């Protein structure tokens, strides 16, 4: 039998099903409803009330959809990933908040105490005003980004069945870490917080890297702000590589091959993008600096004329030290 209510019910239950099964399920539902009505009414034509009773008995269209949908038992992040997701999310949110707070403090310190007389009431007012504004503006959006990043990552792990649990095979159970093997949680958390602070400072307020010319009391930014903004993806990649390295340390909690290889790979990639980034000759605010020193008749300090090279050297040196440190510590404990 055809009835408008039945057709609307079937449509509501099947409209979100895969197209290849939709017609078949619709037909199947029609026969169930017909059978149920026949059982209820026999040869008598069912009334609107009978139809409503049968459809209510069958469940809501949403319930039927849930039953028929082959993906209904799946969720965005399910077991066994959910517990690790919650753990990582908690840590990342702590790191993101502390990283952004650190960046806000650095930036507010410079605006509060940079251009005004040191330790005056006015400088404190500017500092706290700037700090609150920056925290209010940036913390929510950074937390949303961090939440989205971790959630998407774990959703991919869950749906692609990426193996993150090694405890299924008893032989793969890692030995209890001896004291020297353990990586304290503080180390990666601080690392992630610094990566976020680096990202925030460079992306939001790269102008805080500036120097003061005491004669005129003016601040000249070291970096070319437009270039920094246009190369945001390199900065983000650098930050993400740093966070990946620290997250692996956090999850493993011990010095092992996995931590060592991740550190080597992420550091090597960071070194490559550092070189690519700083090989551009317009990262430094060269025109402004040269202009200022030429106009004022002073000589450009050597540190500024070679700043880009120096900056690259410092980053590469830090990455090299970190890599060597990880290798040495891992080899030491694996003996």
């Amino acid at each position, binding site marked *: 039998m055809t009835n408008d209510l039945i057709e609307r019910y079937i449509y509501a239950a099947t409209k979100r099903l895969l197209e290849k099964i939709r017609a078949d*399920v619709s*037909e*199947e539902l029609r*026969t169930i409803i*017909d059978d*149920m009505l026949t059982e209820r009414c026999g040869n008598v034509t069912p009334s609107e009330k009978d139809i409503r009773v049968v459809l209510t008995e*069958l*469940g809501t269209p949403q319930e039927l959809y849930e*039953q028929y949908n082959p993906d209904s038992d799946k969720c965005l992040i399910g077991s066994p990933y959910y517990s690790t997701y919650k753990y990582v999310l908690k840590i990342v949110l702590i790191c993101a908040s502390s990283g952004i707070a650190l960046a806000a403090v650095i930036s507010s310190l410079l605006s509060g105490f940079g251009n005004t007389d040191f330790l005056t009431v006015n400088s404190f007012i500017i500092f706290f005003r700037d700090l609150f504004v920056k925290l209010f503006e940036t913390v929510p959006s950074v937390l949303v980004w961090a939440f989205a990043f971790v959630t998407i990552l774990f959703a991919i792990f869950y749906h692609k069945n990426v193996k993150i649990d090694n405890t299924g095979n008893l032989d793969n159970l890692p030995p209890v870490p001896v004291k020297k093997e353990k990586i304290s949680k503080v180390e990666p958390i601080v690392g992630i917080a610094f990566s976020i602070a680096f990202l925030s400072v460079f992306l939001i307020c790269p102008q805080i890297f500036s120097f003061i010319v005491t004669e005129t009391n003016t601040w000249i930014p070291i970096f070319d702000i437009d270039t920094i903004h246009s190369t945001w993806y390199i900065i983000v990649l650098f930050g993400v590589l740093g966070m990946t390295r620290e997250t692996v340390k956090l999850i493993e909690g011990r010095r092992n091959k996995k931590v060592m290889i991740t550190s080597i790979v992420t550091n090597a990639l960071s070194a490559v993008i550092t070189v690519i980034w700083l090989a551009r000759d317009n990262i430094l605010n060269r025109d402004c600096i040269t202009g200022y020193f030429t106009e004022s008749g002073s000589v450009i300090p050597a540190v500024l004329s070679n700043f880009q090279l120096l900056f690259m050297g410092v980053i590469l040196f830090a990455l090299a030290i970190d890599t060597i440190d990880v290798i040495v510590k891992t080899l030491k404990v694996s003996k």
Partner: protein
Amino acid sequence: MNHDDIVSGLMQELRRGTLILLVLNRLQKPMYGYNLVKELQNHSIPIEANTLYPLMRRLESQGLLKSEWETSESKPRKYYQITEDGLIVLKKATEQWKTFSQNVDKLLSEEENNNDK
């Protein structure tokens, strides 16, 4: 504590697995869905149509059932029947179920006897 809710949840969990076994068992001869609902209800196994139909479809996608629309009757019906793979699974699962339920019965009766003493 609502004991009825806990018991209802527990029974639902216990029924979920055994339903597959019963559906495979009954579908050794071809049947359409509503016919099977009635058949199970006649054996005091209550099952709702909105549970059974999607279950049969899932078993079909696993290769344990096959289906065919029968259009020669007064109204078209989809008949389901167990496959060769379904029979193998049914045989193994039935053996395991029998051993398991016997052991459960034995343990539960022991407990009852101890309580009676």
